[in-house]
């Protein structure tokens, strides 16, 4: 942990005697980060890499994340693996809303983080982070399974750094954090609203 305990000297002295003291928060996060169950949910070719990552050759099970759940009610992690079309975006947000807290999102691949090669297209969302809070972005087209694993380890580090109180606590421990995010709908010309202002603001170019 980044914040040492109140008495680090005593702690190291005890550990020399074979007695290990941890904070409750550490055990809590240790359990959470080693049992991240992803939602079994693929959108495009990145999903093939995600499947490969979960299979024997890359073996995502080493990270405690092999249990791909077919229902959002049982999942902790949404891997947005692939192109999010504007037709699919409402379903993705709704699935995210239906996942229980605490929940995390990995946006996998160029399409999911920005629209990728279809960025100029009329029917592809320019990044799922416009509607839901994304924890880890993976670039690549498609990213290799190793990249997904790196994202997993990054997410594990992120979970490990979350505290039970204070500003860096996970969202479910914050009573003011919203439980659901507004689901966009297909409008006359485009998907409305075009973005969730609370989650995503247009980047300001500083020259």
């Amino acid at each position, binding site marked *: 942990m980044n914040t040492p305990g109140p008495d680090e000297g005593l702690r190291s002295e005890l550990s020399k005697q074979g007695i290990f003291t941890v904070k409750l928060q550490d055990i*809590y996060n240790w359990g959470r980060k080693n049992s991240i169950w992803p939602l079994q949910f693929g959108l495009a070719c990145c999903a093939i890499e995600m499947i490969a990552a979960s299979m024997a050759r890359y073996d995502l099970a080493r990270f405690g994340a092999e249990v791909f759940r077919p*229902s*959002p*009610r049982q999942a902790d992690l949404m891997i947005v693996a692939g192109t999010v079309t504007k037709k699919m975006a*409402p*379903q*993705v947000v*709704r*699935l995210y*809303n*239906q996942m*229980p*807290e*605490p929940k995390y999102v990995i946006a996998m691949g160029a399409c999911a983080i920005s629209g990728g090669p279809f960025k100029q297209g009329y029917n592809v969302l320019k990044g799922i982070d416009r509607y839901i809070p994304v924890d880890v972005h993976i670039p690549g087209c498609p990213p290799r399974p190793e990249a997904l694993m790196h994202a997993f380890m990054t997410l594990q580090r992120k979970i490990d750094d979350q505290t*039970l109180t204070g500003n860096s606590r996970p969202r*479910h*421990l914050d*009573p003011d*954090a919203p*439980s*659901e995010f507004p*689901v966009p709908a297909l409008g006359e010309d485009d998907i409305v609203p075009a973005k969730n202002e609370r989650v995503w603001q247009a980047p300001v170019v500083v020259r």
Partner: protein
Amino acid sequence: MNDYGAYQFLAVFLVVAVLFALVPLGLARLWAKKFSPQKPGAQKNAVYECGLEASGSTAIRFKSEYYIYAIIFLIFDVEVLFLVPFAVAFLNLPLGAFVAMLVFILLLAEGLAWAWMKGVLTWK
């Protein structure tokens, strides 16, 4: 110690058994209250969980007629199971076995006739 003494341990067992079941549930409840407070919402509590919205009411009725069909089918399916070994051993069986099988089949045929008269076989 009176006569009930031999049975007092049962009462202790009962209390321990109830506590054994309830205390972990209570602890889990307390843990959930502290470390995973619920964040319910209209979509999270929705019936359908595949990203789409459920169309229409989910408390719908559906025909139970097929159920009766299936039960009658099952009875005759089992009958075939009995008839095949009977047919294999047919030439070596005494007359009594033949009569018993005949009664069995007639009973089932009677049931079929009854179901037919009741109109079960007519798909409405």
